[in-house]
Each structure stands twice: as structure tokens, then as C-alpha cells.
């Protein structure tokens, strides 16, 4: 039995959460978990252990980098691949991502139909 993927989306913007959810569900039939803040995202990651996490960088309160550190620091959630969602498109803006163990970066804005392919490509999912 093929288990469908479960992806956690952590983004403070409700619209983006909903769009991404609809996109992943419609195109990839993945299960989508939603978190509206970094702290919520950490909690859900610990409890749900998703297959991947789409993490917005700029969030109020615990921003994406703090959330990432917390998830990485937790041995339970450490192995979950994390894809950052960021509006920083320039190389020098993304350079600090190079030193952390993220799976990949998807820049905003993105086209929803290509989102699934990008995730698959980054995570090497079929």
C-alpha cells in the first residue's frame, strides 16, 4: 500500500496556507498539515512527524530560522526535511541558507502547479 505523503505547511499568511494546501491536495494528493506560526509548527512537527515541512522564513514571533533550529535540535524531528519558503530571491540574500541543513528553498511568489514538482525534485519524491 502506497502511503501518501504528509506535508506540514508553516506560514503566518492564511491565504498562502490555503493555496498551498489546495495545490498539494489537488495535484499530489498529499496530506497537508497547517501551522500559522513557528511555535505551532514545532508542536505539530513533533506530534505528527510529517514527511516534509514547508517553512515560511518571515513570520512574526518565532521566525522561520528559529523554527528550523528548534526542529533540528529535536532528535525526533531532526530528520524531517525542511523546505524554506522565502521572498529573498537574490543570491546574497540566500547565502546564509547554505550553511544550514535545509532540503531546499522555494522562492515566493511561486506558481502553484509547479510547487509539487519543485517539492518532489527537492525531496526526491516520485
Amino acid at each position, binding site marked *: 500500500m502506497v502511503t501518501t505523503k504528509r506535508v506540514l505547511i508553516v506560514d*503566518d499568511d*492564511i*491565504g*498562502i496556507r490555503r*493555496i498551498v494546501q489546495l495545490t498539494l491536495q489537488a495535484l499530489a494528493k498529499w496530506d497537508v498539515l497547517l501551522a500559522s506560526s513557528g511555535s505551532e509548527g514545532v508542536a505539530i512537527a513533533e506530534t505528527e512527524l510529517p514527511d516534509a515541512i514547508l517553512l515560511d522564513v518571515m513570520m512574526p514571533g518565532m521566525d522561520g530560522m528559529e523554527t528550523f533550529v528548534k526542529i533540528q535540535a529535536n532528535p525526533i524531528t531532526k530528520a524531517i526535511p525542511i523546505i524554506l519558503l522565502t*521572498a529573498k530571491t537574490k543570491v546574497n540574500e540566500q547565502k546564509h541558507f547554505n550553511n544550514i541543513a535545509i532540503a531546499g528553498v522555494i522562492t515566493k511568489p511561486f506558481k502553484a502547479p509547479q510547487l509539487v514538482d519543485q517539492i518532489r525534485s527537492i525531496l526526491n519524491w516520485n
Partner: protein
Amino acid sequence: MCIRDRIWCQDHSPDILLVDYLLPGINGLEFLLQLQKQTGHERISCIIITGQENQELAIELLKSGAEDVLDKNRITSEGLNRAIANVLQRSFLLRQQEFQRQGRSLIEAITVHSTDKSSELAEIFQYTVDQIRKLLQCDRVVLYQFQPDNSGKIITESVIDPTFSLLGKDIQDNCFAQNEEWKEQYRQGKITIIEDILVGSHHSSCYQQFLEQIQVRAKLSVPTLQNGQVWGLIIAHQCSNPRSWSKAEAELLKQIAIQFGLTIQTVLLHQQAKKEREERQKIENVISNISTVLVTKIGEDFLQVLVKYVCRILTVDYVCLAEIISLEKAKTVVVSDQQQIIDNFEINITDPPCSEVVKAKPNTVVFYQNNAQQLFPEHKLIQSGNIQAFLGIPLFNSSQEAIGILTVLHRYPLENSRLAEEILRIVASRAGAELERQQIEAKLRESEADLLEAQEITHVGHWKWNKLTNEVWWSPEIYRIFDVCPTQKITFSCFVNQIHPSDKDRVLQDIEAALQGEKYSNIYRICQSDGKIRFIQSNGQAIFDAQYNVVGMKGATIDITDLKKTQIELEALNVGLEERVKERTAELTSVYRRLQNELEERQQIELEKQNSEKFYSVYLEEELLERKRIEQALSESEIRYRRIVETSSEGIWQLDQDNKTVFVNPRMAEMLGYSVEEILGKSFLNFLLETDKKSVDDLLGQLQTLIRQPYDIQFCRKDGSILWGMVSTRPIIDESGQYCGRLKMVMDISDRKKAEEILKFQSQILNEIHDAVITTNVQGIIQTWNHGAEELYEYTAEEMIGQSVSILYFAEDLQKMQTLVFDPLMKQERYQLELRNKSKSGREIYVRLRLSTIRDEEGNILSIIGCSNNISDRKQYEQDLLESTQFLETVLDSFPLLVAWKDLNLNYIGCNQTFAKACNLFSVSAIRGKNDENVPWIPLEKNTNHDRQIIQSGKAELGIIQQYLQYDGSIVWLETNKVPLRGFDGRVIGVLETSQDITSRKQNEGIVKEFNRRWRSVLDNIQMIVVELDHNGNVEYINPFFEKISQFTPEEVIGQNWFSHFIPSDLYSSIESVFQEVLKDNTHEYYVNPIVTKSGEKRIIAWRTCVLKDNTGEAIGVISIGEDITEQSRLERMKSEFVSIVSHELKTPLTAMQASLSLLHEKIIDPVSEEGEEIIDIAADGVERLVRLVDDILDLERLRSGKLTMEKKHCHTQNIIAGAIAQTKELAKRADTKIKVPDQSFSCYADCDRLIQVLTNLISNAIKFSPYQSTIQLSVENKNPPSNQESNAKPYLLFSIRDQGRGIPAQNLHSIFERFQQVDASDSREKGGTGLGLAICRDIIEQHGGKIWAESVLKQGSTFFFTIPIHSTEVTNGDN
């Protein structure tokens, strides 16, 4: 047009050609060109007439040489006339120009001829007339020269046709005025112009006929002057036709005449100079020839050759040389008739012209060139010989006495008088000298004859010995004395052989001494050939050559044989007499004793025989008579003896056998200071000095009977003084031959001894002193040579005595020796000089020679004393000193510094060239004697008189800097070093000062100072940090701004390590390593790092660093200028964050929009489905957010940049509130929030819409951040602060919006009004805010001149306030 036409033109030379251009066969241009070619004239006065209106053709015609081109169609008579006139005028001017050019050329050519020394006048004349004729193009040009009698003749001509020639023809102008008026007119430059002799009345018919006679139709003449006098005329003739002479021609001829006159003068001068040169050459040849010809001639032969030579050179008939015997009589010495000597030629010096010659002064020539016969009708010789010319010159001897005359007589006038005079003068001096020589020779011969005669009479002969050839010359008397044949040649050996053997050595010694310079005076015997002995006395002296070498002797000799005989006899007589006296004395002495004894005996006998008187009376009487007689004789003898003894100037001392004194004469007693009685009976030895007693004692004991040679002995006077005496001793022998005592003669030689002692002492001194003391005789033969001389010159006394002092001189100095050394002594007693001598080894010695003389009573020099001391060292020192001085002067002069030195009186005694030049002196020596008042600069500051202080203290003063005012008004700075000058003894003798012009340095210092001041001002005032660190990172300098920023004081910073004290500890090492890299590689010119202030605050500083290096290029530290970019960084950071946030905020809704639309577009989601509608809402919402965000950002930007202006007008607060309520009604409704509004309404002056915007934002925030169903309170208050003089507060409205929300932390109360600064950023998403609202509100309120702020209590709520200024209050009641 054809060749004929061209030939016609060529022959007739028309003034102008008018040529039609278009002609059959050849056009006008071609014709013109061919004519030009044929005539060779480039320009031909030609006017081309053409009917073609072709400008190009016209240009070509003009270029080809046509003077003008006329259009046939437009030609008029006036135009044609004008064109012709122009062409003619132009041609005339050209001709004029050409004429003048040719004239100038001719004048130049004449001038060139004048400078050509080889030019002859005739050539110049001919050339001139030829050229004038060509120039004027006339028929004839002549040169007419005036003669002294005012007549004239043509001397040169140039004619176009030989038939016009006047040369050689006798032309007499009888019409010419005989008075001198014409001369003056010509001298004034009168020009004569006759254009036609047949026309005009300004000349006489006579003159006209004259001119016709010489074929003159027209004439132009100008005078030529030479040396201001009229020389002649230059005349141009036109023979066949009349002619109009132009002004230019007359003027040109006048110029030529002037130059011609100068040329004549110049050429004549050249010729004269040439003639004089030839004459001078002749004279020089004469002098040379005379020397050559006469060099071997002497005597009459000489004079004969001389007169013959003069005859030949002057080519005259007679030359006569006569000797003046007396004023009235002259003896003809020699006369030459050409090359023959004439005898019996009598000359009369009492009549002129010879008398004139006799009376003339030296070198004066009496000269009658050509009229001697007329002038001297009485002179027989002149008349008989038909003599025309006479020259005569007196002959003088060296005493300027006239001793003869030299005369020249010639039958024809003498042309070249000057040459003759010169030759006579030259010859006269030689002739006079020769004549004088002959006269002197004659006198010498006469004297010689007289001398010989005198010698013969007096039997004195003289002799001469040539040491070099060994030959001896004797006068006849000596031959007679020596009894030698007069014809025999005598040598020195012959002479010596005739000297008596006993006297030979002595004579030779004396001769040797004489050769050394001593006087020779000797009496010796010679042996004649017959064996007879003759006594001769010979006196003489050495003969020296020019180099003071002895070359022989000369002297006189007299036969003194007879005299000697007489002397010998006399001596013999004297000896005999002395013997007899001695014998007689001894005899008398013994007789005296005997008589005394006898007397005693007789007395006894007498007593005994008194009784028998009678017996003995007869015997006694006879005995008494005998005794009386003997006694008488004895008494007389004794008296004489006593007289001799007592009056003798010598001491006489008689001793007995026991050496006891039996007699001393008074003189002896006087010499010893004793009385006679005190001496009698005492031993001779008692009166001697102790040291001499023994020797005398020995003498006394030895061979008493011998007569001793005199000896010197010291006596001891009574007073203890010493008496030197020369003692001669003779034994006294009685009749029996027994020794009975001694007789001593004592001569007082104390003075002599003293003198000897002195001499000895002086001699010792002489030998001990280091100076060389040399004495010579007048001829320079060395007589004494002391030890000092031996040391100095390395010659021994034996080597030098008798030698010439010239040995001590180098060959090249010998000449000077006489003039410098000996000659001055003739005039003065003492003299000293410095000169160079030569030692035996050839070494050069410089000596200071002090000379003095020893003279006899008549003042004749007997000896010359020279004292020399070696100054070679001093000379060397002087040379070294001179070189050092020159070197020092060179060094000093090459100094760019002013160097000068002063004496103790502060007067300058020397300086270098730089100083002298600065003082405008021509030489360094000119500074001597000047002082500071004479230098061209005055100190501006009060002079502290450094010089005096230096002299007194003896210490140098360096680096004295003073300003000076120069005479030209400029200021100069001088830095002077003054040091004391010291003498050898260390005493200060002056001041040496060296000065350097530091004006430019001072100026630079001023500039540097100003620069430093400005730099310091910059550093102190710049609003940037300036820090200087050493290579270790320690602080060396901070500027005031750093102090302000960091709150550290300089004392707390300077010297501290920058990195450890002022850099955050976590960055210490990295910043420090950057510093090292900067020091090493000068990298990191710009970098940014934080510093820590005293309060611990971190300030971000942007540094620009520069490495400081020393002279060798080594880094010694850094200086950094830092800009406090803390605020800037914060703002940058904020900006970066803002951009980041804005970017995020913009991209977020864009992401929602793009994703939504892509889902719909790709039909992944059905748009009409529920999800589709949701997606569309998300997209729409995103759009709204985006629009709001963009609007807010733009609003904010417009507000910040001032682009958004407030449209202020009177508003009512009621309306503003109502507008805001309307906009927030829906939101309030959703949140079920009540909004309470104020009742009062106020008026304000503001942009109502913007206030609504502010209030809307604040109300929206209050609603958003209040809980559900809360209440928001709005209020407006009219605030009217009390106005007073101290505050300018204006009335304002205070708006307040109070909510019941969660409150705002105190630390955020200010920052919430910044862009994107929210208490919680999530609020912007949830609440729909952009984060810019409050920032926009602040800007709007601040642009109204109001303030906005917030007050809050957490969990209770916040109140936002803002104020708006009002202009008036209008209070109304209003409801919400």
C-alpha cells in the same frame, strides 16, 4: 603682327603698346610673349584691347605681362587716356626705380673700389666714367681735374663714339672767370645743368662757343671735393642732341661725385700708406744691411764702408763724415763719391749749412732739398760742385757732445726726403759711436804711452797674470828688473823660477792668499840670470770675471834692492849698537859693583890709613881722580839708564840668582799696584796668579841662561785684580860669564787678553749659533764660514773659504744675486732679504739673509757680513698655508652660506665671495675694516649684540634667527651661527659667523604653520573621529570629536592599546589582525567596525585608514578617520529590514494571487467550485492588500519627501470625526465596538482629509486591538496655553483616542510610529494592517506642526494623542 613689327618695337622702344587681342595669325598675348622673349624684358608697357568679355582671359593677359586690358565695347577716350597715363606712370616709376637701383650699385661699386687696396686711381676713374655714361645713357662723360693754377684738364673720359673723345686735347676755357667765386660755388656743391646750349640765356655766348667747340649740346656737371677742397668735376655731355636732365639723374650724379671724392681720398690714403710702408721697409732693410755690412768692420774701414753705403742707398753724389776738432775746425775723416773715397776734401764748419749742422740737436737733420746753390752762394763746395741738395746731421758721443757731422751733397734735388732723413739718423748713431770709439782708442793709446814712460822713469813695472792660460804679461820695466829679454814670453812658472828659493814658499803662499781675495803685498828676492839677487816689492790683487771667479792677478812691482841694502846696513848698525849698549850696560853694572866694593874697602882702608895719610895721599889722590872720572862716567851712564828705565812704558824687573827682586821700575810697580819698595826683595813668583806660578817656576828653574821667548802670564795686583803681562826674559851674565840674575821686560797685555777673550767668546758664539754667518770681500770671496754655515750648506769651512759665494746660488738666480744682494749694500749699511740658496747636495734652501758691511775710515767696504737662517720650513709652511688658504677660500667661496669673520673691535677682517657679493663688493678684501653698519641689511629686532657676548664668554651661539630689512625694502630671514675665533694661545681674537638665508624656509614654516593650524582646526572641528596609532596599536592621538563620541578624555586614551580598550572584545583579535595587515600591506583602506564608548555603548565607525611611514618607508603607525555611522547603520539596517519586510509584504499577497490564479488558470481547481471561490477570494484579498500596501508606501514616501502637501483649510473637528467614523463604521460593527465621540466641535486650520485619514487609522487600530464589544473614546480639547513673554506657545486642539485593548509596552511607545514597527508583526497580517499606518499619521501630524504620541497601560488599554494648531476657536455643540 609679324617679326617686322617686333623688330620695330625692339628698335624704337615705344613707351607703350596698344595691341588688339584678336589679330590674324597671332593674338595679342602671343605677340606680347614673343616680344618679351625677344627683348628680354619681362614687363613691356602694353595695353591689350579686346572685345571679348572674358574675365579669365583678362587675368591671363595681366599675368602674362600686359599692363592693362581694355574692353572694346566699353572703351572711352577718357578711359583710354587714363589707362595709358597709368601705364606710363607705372613705367616711369619702374624706370625710376631701376635707375636708382643702378645708381646705388654704381656707388657701391665705387665704394668697393675704394676699399680695395690694390685699386689704382686711373682704373677707378675709368670705371666710374664708363658706368656713369651707361647709366645716364649719354654721349660722353669726363673727369675734369683742377690744377693748382686753377686751370684744369680732362684726365679720364668715356665716349659712346670715339669722335667725341676729348682726351689728350688741349682745351682752354678762356671764358671761365678768373676770380675764385666759382671755387666757392663748387665747394658748396653747385650743379650745372644745360639742356640745350642753343636755348637759354644763363650762359655767355663765349661759353656757348666753347661748348660747341667741344661738341657739347647738353651738359650736366657736378663738383667732386677732396678734403673739403674742389678736386674737379664729373661732367656728362650729350653731344648731338639737346637733353632734358632729370632731377634723379642730377641727384644721382651728385651722390656719385660725393662717393667718388671719398674714393679718391681713400685710394690716395692707401697709396700713401703703401708708400710709407715701402719706405719703412727700406729703412728696415738699411738697418739690417748696415748691421750685416758693418759687423766686421772697425776703425776707418768701418767709416768708409758706412759712407759708401749711404751714398749707394741714397744714390747721392757725396757723403762726407767729418770730426769736429774745435768749434771752428773739423777734420774730414772720410768722403765718398759714389763708391770711391775722395782724399783732400775740405769741409768748412764755420759757414752754413755745416755750421747749422754742428749746432743742431741730436737726431736733427738739416735738410735743403733742392735749392742749396741759391741759398748758399758763399759756400765754395756747394757752388763748385753744383750741389742742389744738402743734408747734414750731427754726430754725438755718449756724453751728448757733438764730435762730428755727417753730410750728404747731391747735384740734383732729393725727392724722397723722409727716407733720406731716416737713413741719416740711423747711420749717424753708428757713425757717432764709431767716431767716439776711435777717439777713445786714440786717447787710450796716448795714455798707455805715457804710462810706459812714467814707469820707465820711476822703475815701476806692472804685470798681469792670466791664471787660466798661465801667461804673464810684464811691462818693460819688469823685464828690466828680472833681467829678461823683453821678447821672451813669460809664464807663471818662469816667474816662480826666478824667485829666491828661500822666499819662494812665502811668495806662493801670499799669491794663494791673494787669489782668495786678500791683498797681495810682498817683498822678496829674485835671482837674476847673472846670479845677482835683487829685492823687489810687489803689490797686486786678484782679477775676477763676471761670475766672481778668479781669473788671474795684476799688480805693480818695484825694485827695492837699493832700499833694502840701506835697510840691512841700518839694521846691522842698530844691532851693533844694541850689542854695544848691552855690553856697555853689563860693563857699567859690574864696574858699579866693583866700585862700590872698592869704595867700602877704601873706606876701611882710609880709616886704617888715616894715621898714615901722607903715605897714601898721593896714591889716593890719583886713585880718587880715577875714581871720580869713572864715577862721573858711570853716573852719567846710570842717569841715562835710569831715565830709560824709569820712563819706559814697559815694566822692567830685575831678579837675582834667587829670583828675588833687586829692581823694578816705577812702571812695573804701577802695573801691579804696589810700590817699588813693596816689591823689592820679593820673589817674582809672589806676584803671579797661583795657577801660573808653577809653570813659571818650572821655567825659572830651567836653563836659566837661555833667552826665553816671550810668554804670557797673569799677575795678581795688589787689589786682587788680574794683570796679563807678556814677559820677555834675558839672563844677566857678569864679566866672568856667571849667571847673576834675570832682567824681565813686562808688557801689559790685559787689554789684548780681554780683546782675545772677547774675540774667543764671540768666535764661540759664532760657532755655536745656528745661523750661518759668512763674511766675504767685496768681490764675494768667502773669508769666514762658521759652524752654522757648515750645517746649513753642508760645506766645511776649508771647502768654502776662498771660494766665491756664488756657489751657494742656483744658476738661474745668479743674475739676481748682484742686484739683490750686493748692489743695495753700496747704498746702505744693512739690508735683509729672503732668497733661495743651494746646499752642497743641491738641495734648495730658503734663507733670510741679513747683510751688513765693515768699512774703513773712508767708507770703503772691507768685508760683507751675511747672516742666514734657514726659513725653508717657514717657506713650506707659508706655501702650505697659502694652499690651505686658497683651499679654504675655494671652499668658503663655494658655500652658499654667508661667511665672514670679525676682529675684537667687531670690524670685518674677511669674508667669502657669497658674503662679498651680498654686500655688493667687488672683492672679498673690500670687506676689511667694515662693520655691521656697512652691510646692506638692518636687523628688524633689537640687536642683542651677540658678538660682544661671544667675545666675552668665549662660547658659540648657534641658530640665531633674525629678520633683516634690506636696502631694497625686502625682508630677509637669516639663521646665523657665531663662534669665537681663537689664536694659537687659545685667546679669543674675533668672531666667525655663518649665515644662511632661511627666508624661504620661514615662508614655508609659515605655510606649514598655517597648514598645521588649518589641519588642526580641521581635526578639532571635523565631525569625524581621527585616531592615530603607533605600530603597536597604541593611541598617539585622538581628536575632540572622538572624545565627544566616546566620552573618554585624552588622558584616558593616549598611550592605551586601541584594540584592547576600545574595540569590543569579541572583535579584538580580528580587528587587530586587520590592523597588522594594514601596516604590512596597506590593505583595508576602508572597513567598518564598532568601538566601545566609555558608557559601554557600541558605535559603528566606518574607517578610512592611511599608513604612516618614516623617511625610510617603514610603517610607523596608522592614522584613521572614522565616520560614526551608528545611526546610519541603524537606518541602513532599518531600511534593509524595511525593504525586506516590504518585499515580503508585497510578495506575500502576490504569492497568494499568483498561486490562486495559476490553480484556476491551469484548471486544477474549478473556479465555480467552492474551492474555486475560496481561491478567488484569496486572490482578491491579496489584491486588496497589495493595493493598500502600495498606497500606504506611496503615501508615506510622498509625505517624507514633501511631495504630498497639506491642503489646509478651516475644518471643524466634528466633521473630521464624522468622516473617520464613517470609514470605520463597518469595522466597528464587525467588532461590535462602540465609539464615543465628543460633543464639542472646534475649528482648526488643517488638511481635513488627512486628519480624517489619521483619525481613521487610529480608530481602526483601536478597534483592531480592542477586545470584542469594547468601547473607544474619542475626545477633542481646545488647548490654549497662557501666553507670556517667555513662551511662544500657540493654541492647539488635542485629539485623543482611548481604547480598551491589550496595551503597548512602554519600550514600544515610540517605535510604533516607525515604519513597519508593530508591537507584534503578526498583527499586520491578522488585522489587515501594513505596519505603516502610524508612521503615516505621524508624518501628517508633524506636517501640520503638531505632535502624536501614545500612552498605554498593559492589559488596560492605550490612548493615542495628537495635536493640531488652531487659528481661531469656534465652539459649537454637536452630537455624534
